[in-house]
Protein backbone atom coordinates (compact mmCIF):
# COMPACT_ATOMS: atom_id res chain seq x y z
CA UNK A 1 0.00 0.00 0.00
CA UNK A 2 1.18 3.49 -0.76
CA UNK A 3 1.57 6.21 1.82
CA UNK A 4 -1.55 8.20 2.71
CA UNK A 5 0.43 11.41 2.91
CA UNK A 6 3.70 12.07 1.15
CA UNK A 7 5.36 15.47 0.90
CA UNK A 8 8.77 16.41 -0.43
CA UNK A 9 10.28 19.83 0.10
CA UNK A 10 6.87 21.33 0.80
CA UNK A 11 7.09 25.10 1.05
CA UNK A 12 4.67 27.97 1.44
CA UNK A 13 5.44 31.67 1.51
CA UNK A 14 3.11 34.57 2.24
CA UNK A 15 3.43 38.21 1.36
CA UNK A 16 2.54 40.44 4.27
CA UNK A 17 2.40 44.17 4.85
CA UNK A 18 1.50 47.03 2.55
CA UNK A 19 3.35 48.46 -0.40
CA UNK A 20 6.46 50.01 1.17
CA UNK A 21 6.82 47.51 4.00
CA UNK A 22 5.94 44.48 1.89
CA UNK A 23 7.97 41.37 2.66
CA UNK A 24 7.85 37.62 2.13
CA UNK A 25 7.60 35.33 5.09
CA UNK A 26 8.17 31.62 4.91
CA UNK A 27 5.42 29.79 6.79
CA UNK A 28 6.45 26.27 5.83
CA UNK A 29 9.78 25.22 4.43
CA UNK A 30 11.22 21.91 3.24
CA UNK A 31 8.68 19.70 4.95
CA UNK A 32 9.21 16.04 4.11
CA UNK A 33 6.52 13.90 5.59
CA UNK A 34 5.32 10.39 5.00
CA UNK A 35 2.35 8.86 6.74
CA UNK A 36 1.45 5.20 6.21
CA UNK A 37 -2.06 3.75 6.29
CA UNK A 38 -3.31 3.13 9.83
CA UNK A 39 -0.83 5.44 11.51
CA UNK A 40 -1.89 8.02 14.07
CA UNK A 41 0.47 10.96 13.91
CA UNK A 42 0.57 13.93 16.27
CA UNK A 43 1.53 17.14 14.53
CA UNK A 44 2.88 19.53 17.12
CA UNK A 45 4.37 22.95 17.34
CA UNK A 46 3.83 26.33 18.94
CA UNK A 47 1.40 28.88 17.51
CA UNK A 48 2.60 30.16 14.17
CA UNK A 49 4.88 27.18 13.60
CA UNK A 50 3.19 26.27 10.32
CA UNK A 51 0.86 23.46 11.42
CA UNK A 52 -2.33 24.93 10.05
CA UNK A 53 -0.63 26.08 6.88
CA UNK A 54 0.58 22.53 6.29
CA UNK A 55 -2.85 21.10 6.97
CA UNK A 56 -4.48 23.57 4.59
CA UNK A 57 -2.04 22.44 1.90
CA UNK A 58 -2.75 18.78 2.65
CA UNK A 59 -6.48 19.34 2.32
CA UNK A 60 -6.08 21.27 -0.93
CA UNK A 61 -7.39 24.64 0.19
CA UNK A 62 -4.00 26.33 0.07
CA UNK A 63 -1.62 26.06 -2.85
CA UNK A 64 2.02 25.22 -1.99
CA UNK A 65 4.66 27.66 -3.20
CA UNK A 66 6.98 24.76 -3.97
CA UNK A 67 7.46 21.08 -3.30
CA UNK A 68 5.69 17.83 -4.08
CA UNK A 69 2.55 16.71 -2.33
CA UNK A 70 0.35 13.61 -2.58
CA UNK A 71 -2.57 12.85 -0.27
CA UNK A 72 -4.58 9.62 -0.64
CA UNK A 73 -2.80 9.22 -3.97
CA UNK A 74 -4.17 12.52 -5.27
CA UNK A 75 -2.83 15.98 -5.98
CA UNK A 76 -4.69 18.10 -3.38
CA UNK A 77 -4.67 21.32 -5.40
CA UNK A 78 -5.81 19.86 -8.72
CA UNK A 79 -8.09 17.13 -7.35
CA UNK A 80 -9.50 18.95 -4.35
CA UNK A 81 -13.03 17.73 -4.88
CA UNK A 82 -12.05 14.09 -5.33
CA UNK A 83 -9.80 14.38 -2.27
CA UNK A 84 -12.67 15.78 -0.20
CA UNK A 85 -14.43 12.42 -0.62
CA UNK A 86 -11.48 10.55 0.89
CA UNK A 87 -10.72 13.00 3.66
CA UNK A 88 -12.44 13.76 6.93
CA UNK A 89 -11.52 17.08 8.48
CA UNK A 90 -12.37 18.48 11.88
CA UNK A 91 -11.39 22.05 12.63
CA UNK A 92 -11.81 22.68 16.35
CA UNK A 93 -12.50 26.35 15.72
CA UNK A 94 -14.81 26.05 12.72
CA UNK A 95 -18.00 24.18 12.09
CA UNK A 96 -18.91 22.07 9.10
CA UNK A 97 -22.49 21.67 10.33
CA UNK A 98 -25.41 23.82 9.25
CA UNK A 99 -25.90 26.30 12.05
CA UNK A 100 -29.69 26.61 11.73
CA UNK A 101 -30.54 22.97 11.10
CA UNK A 102 -30.95 20.10 13.55
CA UNK A 103 -27.87 17.88 13.80
CA UNK A 104 -29.66 15.01 12.07
CA UNK A 105 -30.43 17.12 8.99
CA UNK A 106 -26.80 18.23 8.74
CA UNK A 107 -25.79 14.57 8.74
CA UNK A 108 -28.36 13.65 6.08
CA UNK A 109 -27.20 16.57 3.96
CA UNK A 110 -23.55 15.51 4.30
CA UNK A 111 -24.50 11.97 3.32
CA UNK A 112 -26.17 13.33 0.18
CA UNK A 113 -23.28 15.66 -0.67
CA UNK A 114 -20.81 12.79 -0.37
CA UNK A 115 -23.21 10.49 -2.22
CA UNK A 116 -23.01 7.82 0.49
CA UNK A 117 -25.42 4.90 -0.12
CA UNK A 118 -28.32 4.98 2.33
CA UNK A 119 -27.52 1.76 4.17
CA UNK A 120 -23.85 2.70 4.66
CA UNK A 121 -24.85 6.15 5.90
CA UNK A 122 -27.30 4.71 8.41
CA UNK A 123 -24.79 2.16 9.70
CA UNK A 124 -22.04 4.74 10.25
CA UNK A 125 -24.40 7.24 11.79
CA UNK A 126 -25.87 4.63 14.10
CA UNK A 127 -22.44 3.72 15.40
CA UNK A 128 -21.45 7.33 16.06
CA UNK A 129 -24.79 8.03 17.73
CA UNK A 130 -24.19 4.99 19.88
CA UNK A 131 -20.59 5.55 20.92
CA UNK A 132 -20.65 9.36 21.10
CA UNK A 133 -24.11 9.38 22.72
CA UNK A 134 -25.61 11.81 20.24
CA UNK A 135 -29.15 10.49 20.70
CA UNK A 136 -30.47 13.12 23.12
CA UNK A 137 -29.59 16.08 20.86
CA UNK A 138 -29.90 14.68 17.32
CA UNK A 139 -32.97 16.81 16.71
CA UNK A 140 -31.61 19.98 18.28
CA UNK A 141 -30.46 22.83 16.04
CA UNK A 142 -26.65 23.03 15.89
CA UNK A 143 -26.65 26.63 17.16
CA UNK A 144 -28.26 25.40 20.39
CA UNK A 145 -25.70 22.67 21.15
CA UNK A 146 -23.02 22.98 23.80
CA UNK A 147 -19.42 23.00 22.57
CA UNK A 148 -18.89 19.40 23.69
CA UNK A 149 -22.03 18.22 21.94
CA UNK A 150 -21.14 20.13 18.79
CA UNK A 151 -17.61 18.67 18.68
CA UNK A 152 -19.05 15.16 18.90
CA UNK A 153 -21.27 16.18 15.99
CA UNK A 154 -18.28 17.54 14.06
CA UNK A 155 -16.33 14.30 14.44
CA UNK A 156 -19.36 12.31 13.30
CA UNK A 157 -19.74 14.63 10.31
CA UNK A 158 -16.11 13.98 9.35
CA UNK A 159 -16.56 10.20 9.50
CA UNK A 160 -19.90 9.70 7.73
CA UNK A 161 -18.38 9.24 4.27
CA UNK A 162 -15.80 6.71 5.51
CA UNK A 163 -12.64 8.73 4.79
CA UNK A 164 -9.17 7.19 4.39
CA UNK A 165 -7.54 9.97 6.36
CA UNK A 166 -8.96 11.88 9.29
CA UNK A 167 -7.37 15.27 9.88
CA UNK A 168 -8.09 16.80 13.27
CA UNK A 169 -7.04 20.40 13.87
CA UNK A 170 -7.24 21.01 17.62
CA UNK A 171 -10.37 18.92 18.11
CA UNK A 172 -10.43 19.21 21.89
CA UNK A 173 -9.87 22.97 22.18
CA UNK A 174 -12.26 24.40 24.77
CA UNK A 175 -13.66 21.05 25.88
CA UNK A 176 -13.94 19.99 29.51
CA UNK A 177 -12.07 16.95 30.79
CA UNK A 178 -14.97 14.50 30.46
CA UNK A 179 -15.74 15.57 26.89
CA UNK A 180 -12.06 15.42 25.95
CA UNK A 181 -11.75 11.93 27.33
CA UNK A 182 -14.84 10.66 25.55
CA UNK A 183 -13.61 12.06 22.25
CA UNK A 184 -10.13 10.60 22.68
CA UNK A 185 -11.49 7.15 23.46
CA UNK A 186 -13.62 7.22 20.34
CA UNK A 187 -10.82 8.46 18.10
CA UNK A 188 -8.52 5.79 19.47
CA UNK A 189 -11.10 3.16 18.59
CA UNK A 190 -11.52 4.55 15.07
CA UNK A 191 -7.75 4.37 14.62
CA UNK A 192 -7.05 1.01 16.22
CA UNK A 193 -10.18 -0.97 15.33
CA UNK A 194 -11.00 0.54 11.92
CA UNK A 195 -7.42 1.23 10.97
CA UNK A 196 -8.21 4.78 9.94
CA UNK A 197 -5.18 7.01 9.44
CA UNK A 198 -5.22 10.01 11.75
CA UNK A 199 -3.29 13.26 11.62
CA UNK A 200 -3.82 15.32 14.75
CA UNK A 201 -2.67 18.81 15.64
CA UNK A 202 -3.18 19.96 19.18
CA UNK A 203 -1.70 21.91 22.03
CA UNK A 204 -2.95 19.29 24.40
CA UNK A 205 -0.24 16.74 25.19
CA UNK A 206 -2.63 14.14 26.65
CA UNK A 207 -4.48 14.09 23.27
CA UNK A 208 -1.28 13.06 21.58
CA UNK A 209 -0.26 10.62 24.28
CA UNK A 210 -3.56 8.79 24.08
CA UNK A 211 -3.84 8.67 20.32
CA UNK A 212 -0.49 8.85 18.65
CA UNK A 213 2.58 6.70 18.72
CA UNK A 214 4.42 8.98 16.36
CA UNK A 215 4.96 12.70 16.67
CA UNK A 216 6.10 15.27 14.14
CA UNK A 217 7.27 18.53 15.66
CA UNK A 218 7.38 21.62 13.51
CA UNK A 219 8.81 24.99 14.42
CA UNK A 220 9.40 28.08 12.33
CA UNK A 221 8.02 26.13 9.39
CA UNK A 222 10.56 23.32 9.59
CA UNK A 223 10.24 19.77 10.88
CA UNK A 224 12.53 19.64 13.91
CA UNK A 225 11.64 16.12 15.01
CA UNK A 226 9.80 13.14 13.57
CA UNK A 227 9.92 10.09 15.83
CA UNK A 228 8.07 7.80 18.20
CA UNK A 229 6.66 9.79 21.11
CA UNK A 230 8.70 7.89 23.74
CA UNK A 231 11.90 8.41 21.84
CA UNK A 232 11.19 12.13 21.63
CA UNK A 233 10.58 12.36 25.35
CA UNK A 234 13.84 10.63 26.06
CA UNK A 235 15.74 12.77 23.60
CA UNK A 236 14.38 16.05 24.88
CA UNK A 237 15.55 15.17 28.38
CA UNK A 238 12.01 14.13 29.27
CA UNK A 239 12.08 16.39 32.30
CA UNK A 240 9.03 15.85 34.44
CA UNK A 241 8.75 17.77 37.62
CA UNK A 242 7.42 17.13 41.08
CA UNK A 243 6.44 20.39 42.73
CA UNK A 244 6.22 20.13 46.51
CA UNK A 245 4.70 22.68 48.87
CA UNK A 246 6.17 22.38 52.33
CA UNK A 247 4.66 23.12 55.72
CA UNK A 248 7.64 25.36 56.51
CA UNK A 249 10.71 26.61 54.63
CA UNK A 250 13.46 24.03 54.20
CA UNK A 251 16.91 23.83 52.69
CA UNK A 252 17.06 22.63 49.05
CA UNK A 253 16.03 18.97 48.92
CA UNK A 254 19.16 17.75 47.18
CA UNK A 255 20.55 14.26 47.22
CA UNK A 256 17.38 12.35 46.35
CA UNK A 257 18.11 9.52 43.92
CA UNK A 258 17.03 10.26 40.33
CA UNK A 259 16.55 14.00 40.74
CA UNK A 260 18.48 15.96 38.15
CA UNK A 261 17.74 19.47 39.33
CA UNK A 262 16.23 21.20 42.35
CA UNK A 263 14.80 24.72 42.08
CA UNK A 264 13.76 26.57 45.21
CA UNK A 265 10.88 29.07 45.13
CA UNK A 266 9.07 31.15 47.77
CA UNK A 267 11.97 31.03 50.25
CA UNK A 268 12.11 27.27 50.30
CA UNK A 269 8.38 26.63 50.87
CA UNK A 270 7.99 25.52 47.26
CA UNK A 271 10.59 23.36 45.56
CA UNK A 272 10.67 21.93 42.06
CA UNK A 273 12.39 18.57 41.60
CA UNK A 274 13.12 17.64 37.99
CA UNK A 275 13.58 13.97 37.11
CA UNK A 276 13.65 11.67 34.10
CA UNK A 277 10.95 8.97 34.08
CA UNK A 278 13.64 6.45 33.23
CA UNK A 279 15.53 7.12 36.48
CA UNK A 280 12.78 7.13 39.09
CA UNK A 281 9.02 7.41 39.54
CA UNK A 282 7.03 10.30 40.89
CA UNK A 283 5.76 8.05 43.71
CA UNK A 284 9.25 7.09 44.87
CA UNK A 285 10.32 10.68 44.75
CA UNK A 286 7.36 11.94 46.77
CA UNK A 287 7.96 9.19 49.36
CA UNK A 288 11.61 10.25 49.67
CA UNK A 289 10.65 13.88 50.15
CA UNK A 290 7.97 13.01 52.71
CA UNK A 291 10.59 11.21 54.82
CA UNK A 292 12.63 14.40 55.12
CA UNK A 293 10.07 17.21 55.43
CA UNK A 294 6.39 17.75 56.15
CA UNK A 295 4.43 18.06 52.88
CA UNK A 296 1.40 20.25 52.36
CA UNK A 297 0.78 19.72 48.66
CA UNK A 298 2.27 17.87 45.70
CA UNK A 299 1.82 18.36 41.95
CA UNK A 300 3.39 16.39 39.14
CA UNK A 301 4.09 18.52 36.08
CA UNK A 302 4.42 16.90 32.66
CA UNK A 303 6.69 18.64 30.20
CA UNK A 304 4.42 20.88 28.14
CA UNK A 305 4.45 20.67 24.38
CA UNK A 306 5.97 24.11 24.28
CA UNK A 307 8.83 22.94 26.53
CA UNK A 308 9.31 19.82 24.45
CA UNK A 309 9.40 21.85 21.28
CA UNK A 310 11.68 24.45 22.79
CA UNK A 311 14.17 21.81 23.87
CA UNK A 312 14.00 20.10 20.52
CA UNK A 313 14.46 23.39 18.73
CA UNK A 314 17.42 24.34 20.88
CA UNK A 315 19.04 21.01 20.04
CA UNK A 316 18.74 21.61 16.30
Amino acid at each position, binding site marked *: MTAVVRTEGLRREFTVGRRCARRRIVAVSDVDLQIEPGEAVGFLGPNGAGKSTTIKMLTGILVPTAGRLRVCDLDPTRQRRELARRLGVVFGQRSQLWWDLPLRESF*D*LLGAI*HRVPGAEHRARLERCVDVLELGPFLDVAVRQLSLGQRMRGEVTAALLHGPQLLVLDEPTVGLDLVSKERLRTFLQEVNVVDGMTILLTTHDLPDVERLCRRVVVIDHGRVVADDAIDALRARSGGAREVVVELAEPAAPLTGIAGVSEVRVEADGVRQRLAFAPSDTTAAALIAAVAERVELRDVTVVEPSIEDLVRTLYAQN
Partner: protein
Amino acid sequence: MLRPYLHLVRAGFRRHSIYLAASLAGLFTNTVFGLLRVAVLLAVVGQTGSAAGYDAADTGTFVWLGQGLLAVVMIWPDRELAQRVRSGDVAIDLGRPWNLQPALLAQDLGRAGHAMLIRFGPPVLFGALVLPFRWPHSPWTVLVFALSTVLAVVISFAARFLLDLTAFWLLDNRGVATVYAAATGVLCGLTVPVAYFPDPIRIALYATPFPAMLQTPIDVFGERGATAALLGHQVLWAALLLAAGQLVLARATRKLVVQGG
Protein backbone atom coordinates in the same frame (compact mmCIF):
# COMPACT_ATOMS: atom_id res chain seq x y z
CA MET B 1 -25.95 13.34 -10.11
CA LEU B 2 -28.53 15.84 -8.90
CA ARG B 3 -29.30 14.25 -5.55
CA PRO B 4 -26.92 16.42 -3.51
CA TYR B 5 -28.25 19.58 -5.11
CA LEU B 6 -31.88 18.62 -4.50
CA HIS B 7 -30.99 18.03 -0.86
CA LEU B 8 -29.37 21.46 -0.77
CA VAL B 9 -32.50 23.09 -2.18
CA ARG B 10 -34.48 21.46 0.61
CA ALA B 11 -31.91 22.53 3.21
CA GLY B 12 -32.11 26.12 1.97
CA PHE B 13 -35.88 25.98 2.37
CA ARG B 14 -35.62 24.43 5.85
CA ARG B 15 -33.01 26.90 7.09
CA HIS B 16 -35.35 29.78 6.39
CA SER B 17 -38.54 28.11 7.52
CA ILE B 18 -37.03 27.99 11.01
CA TYR B 19 -37.12 31.75 11.37
CA LEU B 20 -40.86 32.21 10.94
CA ALA B 21 -41.07 35.25 13.22
CA ALA B 22 -38.42 37.05 11.16
CA SER B 23 -40.27 36.14 7.97
CA LEU B 24 -43.52 37.51 9.35
CA ALA B 25 -41.81 40.73 10.47
CA GLY B 26 -40.36 41.11 6.97
CA LEU B 27 -43.76 40.44 5.47
CA PHE B 28 -45.33 43.14 7.61
CA THR B 29 -42.63 45.67 6.65
CA ASN B 30 -42.99 44.83 2.95
CA THR B 31 -46.73 45.34 3.11
CA VAL B 32 -46.51 48.69 4.90
CA PHE B 33 -43.91 49.95 2.42
CA GLY B 34 -46.12 48.64 -0.37
CA LEU B 35 -48.96 50.85 0.83
CA LEU B 36 -46.66 53.90 0.94
CA ARG B 37 -45.33 53.21 -2.55
CA VAL B 38 -48.78 52.64 -3.98
CA ALA B 39 -49.92 55.96 -2.49
CA VAL B 40 -47.01 57.86 -4.06
CA LEU B 41 -47.19 56.21 -7.49
CA LEU B 42 -50.99 56.46 -7.68
CA ALA B 43 -50.60 60.20 -7.02
CA VAL B 44 -48.28 60.37 -10.03
CA VAL B 45 -50.70 58.40 -12.20
CA GLY B 46 -53.66 60.38 -10.85
CA GLN B 47 -52.49 63.59 -12.59
CA THR B 48 -53.01 62.22 -16.08
CA GLY B 49 -54.74 58.86 -15.63
CA SER B 50 -51.62 57.04 -16.74
CA ALA B 51 -47.83 57.45 -16.65
CA ALA B 52 -45.42 55.75 -19.07
CA GLY B 53 -48.18 53.33 -20.01
CA TYR B 54 -49.11 52.49 -16.41
CA ASP B 55 -52.70 53.13 -15.30
CA ALA B 56 -53.90 52.68 -11.72
CA ALA B 57 -54.33 48.89 -11.96
CA ASP B 58 -50.92 48.47 -13.65
CA THR B 59 -49.35 50.60 -10.93
CA GLY B 60 -50.91 48.54 -8.13
CA THR B 61 -49.76 45.31 -9.80
CA PHE B 62 -46.26 46.72 -10.26
CA VAL B 63 -45.95 47.74 -6.61
CA TRP B 64 -47.32 44.56 -5.04
CA LEU B 65 -45.40 42.19 -7.27
CA GLY B 66 -42.26 44.22 -6.56
CA GLN B 67 -42.85 44.14 -2.81
CA GLY B 68 -43.47 40.40 -2.97
CA LEU B 69 -40.55 39.61 -5.25
CA LEU B 70 -37.87 41.69 -3.56
CA ALA B 71 -37.46 39.12 -0.78
CA VAL B 72 -37.78 36.17 -3.17
CA VAL B 73 -35.15 37.50 -5.55
CA MET B 74 -33.25 39.08 -2.65
CA ILE B 75 -32.16 42.20 -4.46
CA TRP B 76 -30.09 43.38 -1.49
CA PRO B 77 -26.90 41.48 -0.66
CA ASP B 78 -26.86 39.24 2.43
CA ARG B 79 -23.02 38.89 2.43
CA GLU B 80 -23.17 35.41 3.98
CA LEU B 81 -20.37 34.05 1.81
CA ALA B 82 -18.36 37.27 2.15
CA GLN B 83 -18.44 36.88 5.91
CA ARG B 84 -17.33 33.27 5.62
CA VAL B 85 -14.38 34.44 3.53
CA ARG B 86 -13.53 37.05 6.12
CA SER B 87 -13.71 34.61 9.04
CA GLY B 88 -11.96 31.82 7.15
CA ASP B 89 -14.94 29.48 7.43
CA VAL B 90 -14.90 29.34 3.65
CA ALA B 91 -12.17 26.70 4.15
CA ILE B 92 -14.99 24.34 5.14
CA ASP B 93 -17.03 25.23 2.05
CA LEU B 94 -14.06 24.67 -0.23
CA GLY B 95 -13.19 21.39 1.47
CA ARG B 96 -16.42 19.76 0.35
CA PRO B 97 -16.82 17.54 -2.70
CA TRP B 98 -19.01 20.01 -4.57
CA ASN B 99 -18.77 22.96 -6.87
CA LEU B 100 -19.34 25.89 -4.52
CA GLN B 101 -21.37 28.00 -6.93
CA PRO B 102 -24.13 25.49 -7.84
CA ALA B 103 -24.17 24.30 -4.22
CA LEU B 104 -24.90 27.81 -2.97
CA LEU B 105 -27.32 28.40 -5.86
CA ALA B 106 -29.26 25.30 -4.83
CA GLN B 107 -29.54 26.59 -1.26
CA ASP B 108 -30.58 30.01 -2.56
CA LEU B 109 -33.33 28.46 -4.68
CA GLY B 110 -34.61 26.72 -1.54
CA ARG B 111 -34.54 30.02 0.29
CA ALA B 112 -36.42 31.67 -2.58
CA GLY B 113 -39.04 28.90 -2.53
CA HIS B 114 -39.71 29.60 1.11
CA ALA B 115 -39.85 33.34 0.47
CA MET B 116 -42.33 32.71 -2.35
CA LEU B 117 -44.75 31.15 0.14
CA ILE B 118 -44.32 33.56 3.03
CA ARG B 119 -43.08 36.81 1.55
CA PHE B 120 -44.64 36.84 -1.93
CA GLY B 121 -48.09 35.32 -1.56
CA PRO B 122 -49.57 37.42 1.26
CA PRO B 123 -48.68 40.97 0.07
CA VAL B 124 -49.74 40.20 -3.51
CA LEU B 125 -53.06 38.76 -2.32
CA PHE B 126 -53.56 41.72 -0.02
CA GLY B 127 -52.81 44.19 -2.81
CA ALA B 128 -54.99 42.33 -5.28
CA LEU B 129 -57.98 42.27 -2.97
CA VAL B 130 -57.77 45.77 -1.50
CA LEU B 131 -56.46 47.94 -4.35
CA PRO B 132 -56.63 48.14 -8.14
CA PHE B 133 -54.87 45.09 -9.60
CA ARG B 134 -54.52 43.49 -13.02
CA TRP B 135 -54.51 39.71 -13.30
CA PRO B 136 -52.99 38.17 -16.45
CA HIS B 137 -55.35 37.43 -19.35
CA SER B 138 -53.75 34.15 -20.32
CA PRO B 139 -53.35 31.31 -17.80
CA TRP B 140 -50.00 30.52 -19.48
CA THR B 141 -48.69 33.81 -18.22
CA VAL B 142 -48.59 32.44 -14.67
CA LEU B 143 -46.30 29.61 -15.79
CA VAL B 144 -44.04 31.96 -17.72
CA PHE B 145 -44.01 34.27 -14.70
CA ALA B 146 -42.85 31.36 -12.51
CA LEU B 147 -40.05 30.60 -14.98
CA SER B 148 -39.07 34.26 -15.19
CA THR B 149 -38.99 34.48 -11.39
CA VAL B 150 -36.68 31.47 -11.14
CA LEU B 151 -34.40 33.12 -13.72
CA ALA B 152 -34.52 36.35 -11.73
CA VAL B 153 -33.45 34.46 -8.58
CA VAL B 154 -30.58 32.84 -10.51
CA ILE B 155 -29.42 36.21 -11.88
CA SER B 156 -29.64 37.89 -8.50
CA PHE B 157 -27.81 34.97 -6.88
CA ALA B 158 -25.07 35.04 -9.53
CA ALA B 159 -24.61 38.79 -9.04
CA ARG B 160 -24.51 38.45 -5.23
CA PHE B 161 -22.07 35.55 -5.55
CA LEU B 162 -19.70 37.72 -7.61
CA LEU B 163 -20.16 40.53 -5.11
CA ASP B 164 -19.26 38.20 -2.23
CA LEU B 165 -16.22 36.87 -4.08
CA THR B 166 -14.70 40.36 -3.95
CA ALA B 167 -14.10 39.54 -0.27
CA PHE B 168 -11.26 37.24 -1.37
CA TRP B 169 -9.38 40.37 -2.46
CA LEU B 170 -10.89 43.05 -0.23
CA LEU B 171 -11.41 40.90 2.90
CA ASP B 172 -14.20 43.27 3.87
CA ASN B 173 -16.60 43.95 1.03
CA ARG B 174 -19.05 46.09 2.99
CA GLY B 175 -18.28 49.13 0.82
CA VAL B 176 -19.01 47.34 -2.45
CA ALA B 177 -22.10 45.74 -0.95
CA THR B 178 -23.44 49.12 0.20
CA VAL B 179 -23.01 50.65 -3.26
CA TYR B 180 -24.67 47.58 -4.78
CA ALA B 181 -27.61 47.78 -2.37
CA ALA B 182 -28.08 51.48 -3.06
CA ALA B 183 -27.95 51.03 -6.83
CA THR B 184 -30.02 47.91 -7.22
CA GLY B 185 -33.29 49.38 -5.86
CA VAL B 186 -33.37 52.02 -8.56
CA LEU B 187 -31.79 50.04 -11.39
CA CYS B 188 -33.88 46.87 -11.14
CA GLY B 189 -37.22 48.64 -11.17
CA LEU B 190 -38.18 48.55 -7.52
CA THR B 191 -38.44 52.28 -6.82
CA VAL B 192 -40.20 53.19 -10.07
CA PRO B 193 -40.92 51.15 -13.19
CA VAL B 194 -37.97 51.06 -15.58
CA ALA B 195 -40.44 52.45 -18.17
CA TYR B 196 -40.42 55.77 -16.27
CA PHE B 197 -36.83 56.41 -17.36
CA PRO B 198 -36.09 58.31 -20.59
CA ASP B 199 -35.28 56.04 -23.53
CA PRO B 200 -31.46 56.33 -23.55
CA ILE B 201 -31.25 55.50 -19.86
CA ARG B 202 -33.72 52.65 -20.21
CA ILE B 203 -31.72 51.13 -23.03
CA ALA B 204 -28.54 51.50 -20.99
CA LEU B 205 -30.26 49.79 -18.05
CA TYR B 206 -31.06 46.76 -20.19
CA ALA B 207 -27.35 46.47 -20.93
CA THR B 208 -27.05 45.57 -17.21
CA PRO B 209 -28.55 42.54 -15.47
CA PHE B 210 -30.55 44.64 -12.99
CA PRO B 211 -33.94 44.93 -14.77
CA ALA B 212 -33.84 41.15 -15.30
CA MET B 213 -33.91 40.65 -11.52
CA LEU B 214 -37.25 42.35 -10.85
CA GLN B 215 -38.75 44.39 -13.69
CA THR B 216 -38.76 41.46 -16.12
CA PRO B 217 -40.88 39.02 -14.05
CA ILE B 218 -43.25 41.92 -13.29
CA ASP B 219 -43.49 42.73 -17.01
CA VAL B 220 -44.12 39.06 -17.79
CA PHE B 221 -46.97 39.03 -15.26
CA GLY B 222 -48.36 42.28 -16.67
CA GLU B 223 -48.04 40.87 -20.22
CA ARG B 224 -45.91 43.82 -21.33
CA GLY B 225 -43.41 43.30 -24.12
CA ALA B 226 -42.43 40.20 -26.05
CA THR B 227 -42.11 37.23 -23.71
CA ALA B 228 -39.37 35.59 -25.77
CA ALA B 229 -37.24 38.73 -25.72
CA LEU B 230 -37.73 39.18 -21.97
CA LEU B 231 -36.84 35.58 -21.14
CA GLY B 232 -33.97 35.59 -23.66
CA HIS B 233 -32.49 38.64 -21.93
CA GLN B 234 -32.76 36.83 -18.58
CA VAL B 235 -31.22 33.60 -19.85
CA LEU B 236 -28.35 35.55 -21.36
CA TRP B 237 -27.58 37.39 -18.14
CA ALA B 238 -27.97 34.25 -16.01
CA ALA B 239 -25.46 32.43 -18.21
CA LEU B 240 -23.04 35.36 -18.34
CA LEU B 241 -23.05 35.99 -14.59
CA LEU B 242 -22.79 32.31 -13.66
CA ALA B 243 -19.86 31.89 -16.05
CA ALA B 244 -18.17 35.00 -14.64
CA GLY B 245 -18.73 33.59 -11.14
CA GLN B 246 -17.00 30.32 -12.06
CA LEU B 247 -14.02 32.20 -13.52
CA VAL B 248 -13.64 34.50 -10.55
CA LEU B 249 -14.10 31.60 -8.11
CA ALA B 250 -11.27 29.72 -9.82
CA ARG B 251 -9.04 32.80 -9.53
CA ALA B 252 -10.05 33.33 -5.92
CA THR B 253 -9.29 29.80 -4.82
CA ARG B 254 -5.93 29.88 -6.55
CA LYS B 255 -4.84 32.95 -4.61
CA LEU B 256 -6.65 31.75 -1.53
CA VAL B 257 -5.30 32.68 1.84
CA VAL B 258 -7.65 31.32 4.43
CA GLN B 259 -7.88 33.65 7.39
CA GLY B 260 -7.15 32.49 10.93
CA GLY B 261 -5.55 29.43 12.52
